[in-house]
């Protein structure tokens, strides 16, 4: 498992060395939190929804994890271009160990980034309802990170260059986010939107995180956990299979 450790450590070192990127990626969640949180807050309260910031914060934290995980996975394409991918692919270690290290590294970085945004939310006035459930929230952060790093790695394994990245971002990641219930409650949605949300893995991540942090969940934390765990395992295998078939 040394290879897994090496690739995990590499991801972490790269993260801690790019402080500007770390700060830069805080911009989007802060904007969402302030503009939407305080912008829609009054009307949300008027509609009887309660405190919108309290509702939105878990969604914004999940968003951060989603984006950080996807970006980490896309580093595989970068590794291909700078040539470092070759170095790992000829090493006498199983490719499963390599991809596992990358996925774990991506999830760890995503957790850190998620915690940073959690702190920002806290400053903005967000309060988790139960301290005992915080470890469960952390588990959901990890699972969201793991799932999306694995998914991103599966895609990135067979992409030649960064040109396809905007397509993935705009036609895949953004819709997943906007259709996940991160920004609005899933109760009483129009049929079509409701079905899409049910087939969206991020819905379960957002819901579980929100359940753990605020006590209010749509699907129930047990189902959220089950769905994410199973999907993460499946994706880890698909990702490692696709990764093992890389030819340079």
């Amino acid at each position: 498992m040394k290879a897994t450790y090496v690739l995990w450590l590499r991801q972490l070192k790269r993260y801690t060395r790019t402080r500007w990127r770390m700060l830069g990626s805080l911009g989007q969640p802060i904007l969402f939190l302030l503009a939407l949180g305080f912008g829609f807050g009054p009307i949300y309260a008027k509609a009887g929804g309660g405190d919108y910031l309290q509702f939105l914060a878990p969604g914004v934290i999940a968003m951060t994890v989603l984006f950080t995980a996807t970006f980490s996975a896309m580093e595989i394409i970068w590794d291909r271009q700078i040539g470092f991918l070759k170095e790992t692919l000829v090493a006498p270690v199983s490719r499963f160990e390599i991809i596992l290290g990358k996925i774990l590294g991506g999830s760890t970085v995503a957790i850190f980034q998620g915690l940073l945004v959690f702190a920002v939310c806290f400053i903005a006035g967000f309060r988790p309802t139960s301290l005992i459930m915080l470890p469960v929230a952390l588990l959901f952060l990890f699972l969201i990170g793991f799932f999306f790093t694995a998914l991103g790695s599966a895609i990135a394994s067979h992409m030649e260059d960064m040109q396809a990245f905007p397509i993935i971002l705009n036609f895949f990641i953004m819709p997943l986010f906007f259709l996940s219930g991160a920004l609005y409650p899933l109760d009483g949605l129009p049929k079509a939107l409701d079905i899409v949300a049910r087939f969206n893995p991020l819905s379960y991540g957002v819901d579980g995180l929100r359940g753990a942090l605020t006590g209010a969940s749509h699907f129930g934390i047990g189902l959220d956990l089950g769905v994410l765990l199973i999907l993460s395992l499946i994706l880890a295998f698909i990702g490692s299979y696709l990764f093992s078939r890389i030819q340079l």
Partner: protein
Amino acid sequence: MKVEKIIDVENLVKKYGKLTAVDDLSFHVNKRDIFAFLGPNGAGKTTTIKMLTTLLKPTSGSMKVNGLNPTKDQFKVRKSFGIVFQDPSLDNELSAYENMYFHSLLYGIDKKGRKEKIEKLLDFVGLLDRKDSYVKTFSGGMKRRLEIARGLIHHPKILFLDEPTIGLDPQTRNHIWNYIKELNKKEGMTVFFTTHNMDEAERYANHVAIIDYGKILFRGTPDKIKKHAKAKTIEDAFLNLTGHTIRKEAGGAIDRVRAMAKSWGNR
């Protein structure tokens, strides 16, 4: 003494769509040999190395590396070789030491003596005082030296060197080759290298193969090849055998066709 073949290639073919990069290639490398694999740009050298080192699957033909099939026993084959790639493969965001350290973990170097080994090799290529600098601050020659040092951390049965000394001055080249020759002599390590520097082939190789348009034109000792081509030096022999015309963007063209073929899912 019976000569053992450590690399054996028969009728190897690699096609990218309509383009044939390696065309019915057959050759072998003896154990303990220093083997120079020569050819003009785009002749199929790097493609062949990629197939031998499990990075690329051949279209047809058979290969044996250390008695194993790189297409099937990938994992075991990877245990038997080390490689210095033609193009960069370092992580620029890591320091020189970290690049060496990560490599040594991937290759299972014992913890005991690991640090000393890495520092010794960094010293050998003149980078010890820069060991904690990020690779992105290095010049081309320094990066090349680091790649070579990294490739020498573990001592495999076969060492592939794809244009290892490109961009290095004669002093450094000589220094590094002396070390490799020593490894070859002491540990019986087989060395398989490519170069455009014919002098390098003449000085260090026991056997030479010249490849062009994906086919072997000649294989033998440097003396034999010169005799065969009625030339005084390997450079002249090379030119006599492969012609004097300059290959138009040879390597680049292959890369483009490959990229095109790949993007259309036409592997």
